[in-house]
Every structure is written in C-alpha cells, then in structure tokens.
C-alpha cells in the first residue's frame, strides 16, 4: 500500500514475541483489551511448552483425557475468550488483534462480523494458496483446519485471536477428547483426520511477514517493544481483575473423580 493511502488509517501497535508462555500472553491480552484504548496486534511465534487452553465455558471432564493430562502434568488454562479447546506448543503461531469498536470500517462488534472480516484479512495472507477459506469459524485448507479462533467483545472493544497450527505433535492431540460441540464440516473426524499443518503450505517466517503486511493494509502499524514479564507482574493491579487462569491440579483431580463416579453410576 502506498504511503499516501496509509495516511488516515487507524494506528495499531505491533508486538512480536518468541516462545512466550501462553498464560503470560493471555494475561497481557486480557489486560490490553480491558484497560488500553489503543489497537494492538500481538504475534507470539510459538509458546514455550505444551499447554491445554480451554474457552471460558469449557469443562475439563468433557473436553480432556484427564488421566493423561494429570499423569503427564500438562498445564490447563481457562482463557477469557469463548470457543473450544486447543493444545498449543512451540509449533503454534499466535496472532491476536485487539481493536476499538469502530477501528475497522464496516465491522460491527459482533462475532460473525468480526470473524468474516478476519477471513478476508487472512485471505490476503494466503492469496495464491488453493483451498484457503474461513469455514464456519475455522481457517482451513480444503477440509482441514489449521487455525482456530476465539473472541471477546466488550462495550467499546473486541479481541480476535487465533492459534495457527504451523506444526504439532500427534501425541499431544491425544490429550483432547472429541468435543460434543463441533463444526458441521468436521463430520465426527478424529483430531488427526481433521487438522493439518500450515508448514506444508507456507514457511513460518513468510506467514508472519505476510500477516504483518496484510494488517498494514488496514492499519498504520507501529512496532513496539513490550516487556511481557513487567506487564504480567502488573496483573496484580488492583484496578483490573483478570479471568484467565491456570487450573489447579486439585480441580482437575476433582473433575476426574466426578466423571469416574458418573461413569460407574451409568454402568
């Protein structure tokens, strides 16, 4: 886009991380959504270790193989946005957009409007790659999902964040049960038949560069250095109460105990 056209576009702060723990990333995002009045793009190129991340209403007993999760001591986080359960690791690329409600012309602060616009944005990123589209609420190549989305919408702002499966370990998917609520196009496929690796379509650095370029078509992007540890420490700020949290081992054990009892009653 020419410099002349970029004049008048809303500002967006761009923050890039490598390997930041997903809990710190989510704490930062929730704080920026609730307490900042700027637009933000956060790109975290991989998180440091495998972690399960559930949506706000997620129930561990329904969504996770709790025995394996507890045995392998996999951390489980409940995030502040909606949507389903993912397992993230160093092969996951996170892209988050936090915007004021009127930042994008034509986008209403409702889930479908934001999702549709995001599909168009990533259409620019994956231009020339056959088969990319937004399908129900996932990014897919053909019939296979490689990007999952979630949102949170407040009175004046919204966040749309995505975990992209640039690569993943098949074994990690075994921590996740088949969800009862799934998109129609999934057709009851197992995780391994449902998802695909983005690395088979695009190099990692090319994806990140193209994403930054695409965002630059809609915003005047300003790279910013942010100390995520300083912000994370500040999460104890009394003015802000975050809802994203790490589930305690006791909670997971209790969930396993309850679901085991229920199974015994049924049999």
């Amino acid at each position: 886009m020419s410099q002349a056209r970029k004049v008048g576009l809303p500002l967006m702060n761009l923050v890039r991380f490598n390997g930041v723990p997903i809990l710190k990333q989510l704490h930062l995002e929730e704080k920026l959504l609730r307490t900042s009045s700027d637009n933000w793009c956060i790109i975290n190129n991989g998180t440091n270790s495998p972690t399960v991340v559930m949506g706000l209403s997620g129930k561990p007993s329904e969504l996770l193989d709790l025995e394996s999760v507890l045995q392998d001591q996999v951390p489980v986080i409940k995030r502040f946005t909606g949507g389903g359960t993912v397992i993230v690791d160093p092969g996951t690329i996170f892209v988050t957009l936090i915007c004021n409600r009127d930042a994008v012309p034509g986008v209403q602060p409702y889930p479908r409007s934001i999702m549709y616009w995001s599909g168009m944005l990533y259409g620019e990123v994956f231009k020339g790659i056959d088969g990319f589209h937004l399908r129900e609420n996932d990014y897919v190549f053909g019939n296979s999902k490689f990007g999952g989305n979630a949102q949170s919408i407040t009175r004046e702002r919204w966040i749309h964040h995505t975990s992209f499966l640039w690569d993943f370990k098949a074994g990690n998917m075994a921590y996740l049960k088949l969800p009862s609520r799934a998109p129609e196009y999934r057709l009851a496929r197992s995780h391994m038949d449902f998802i695909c690796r983005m690395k088979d379509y695009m190099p990692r650095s090319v994806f990140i560069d193209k994403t930054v370029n695409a965002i630059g078509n809609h915003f005047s992007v300003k790279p910013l250095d942010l100390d995520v540890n300083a912000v994370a420490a500040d999460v104890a700020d009394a003015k802000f109460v975050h809802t994203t949290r790490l589930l305690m081992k006791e909670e997971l054990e209790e969930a396993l105990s309850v679901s085991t009892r229920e199974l015994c009653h049924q049999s």
Partner: protein
Amino acid sequence: MALRMWASSTANAVRLSCASRPPLSPAFSLSRCFSSVLDGLKYATSHEWVKHEGSVATIGITHHAQDHLGEVVFVEVPESGGPVKKGSSFGAVESVKATSDVNSPISGEIVEVNTKLTESPGLINSSPYEEGWMIKVKPSNPSELESLMGPKEYTKFCEEEDAAH
C-alpha cells in the same frame, strides 16, 4: 372487533423495523431484516433492556442483540446481593466463539439472578424479553432510567447502527 383490537394491540406491542444489510456480512446470511422491540421497556445503546416495576428492575439483552450474537451456549451471571453500576459489565454470554459483555443500564443491587440460564442458555435466544431475563435489580438511582431510550428511539438506533456498517 375483538380480533381487530387484539391485532392492533399486538402490533403496538411488537414493533417491526427494517435494517439494511451491513456490507461486511457473510454472503450466506441474508439480512435479518427486522428486530422486535417491546413497549413498556427502556433500552441501552449497548442493547440491554430494563423493565421497571415497583421497586425492582428486570434486565436482559434485546432481540437485536441475541440475533446478532448467534446461538448462546453459555451465560455467566453474577451472585445475587452484589452491586451493579450503570454502563459497567455484570456478566457475559458466550455465542459462536465469542464471549460478549452484558452491561447494566442502571445502578443498584442485584436481588435475583435467573439461574435457569445455567442449564438453558438458549432462553436468551428464544425468549430474550421473558424467560431469558438475566438479573433483577433494586435501582439505587431511578432517575437513570430517564436517560435510556424508549422503544421508538431504540428501533431507530438499531436501524442506524446496522445501516452504518
């Protein structure tokens, strides 16, 4: 005559208005070209409604809001006894992949919470003004109701909001 009167009062109670199709909508979603707005309620710009009866005000989200949000799958409501502040969030609904704040149009103390929403969050979609109510509040400043929109004003507000996008 009786039928005509019934039809007339129903038409007054349920206002129909047309909203133009927002340009950035999925192609498969033909415009939901009307919203229902009820007489006797007051409305906030963040699409919550208030019904003030005696010392209690009942609060929920409007038909317009639930229509734009999609199928509600989870509702987060606060505990009874806590305060609410005009314009501030008191709970959230989850629909599709999103959690959306629900804001209180007035300040006061929560006296009752609709616990049915835990098991039946879809009541917000099927019955936003009746069974889908969210909280009941004892208003601390009843004059706050005067700054809210009436049905005609809210209908126009929704039309203008949809047309602007």
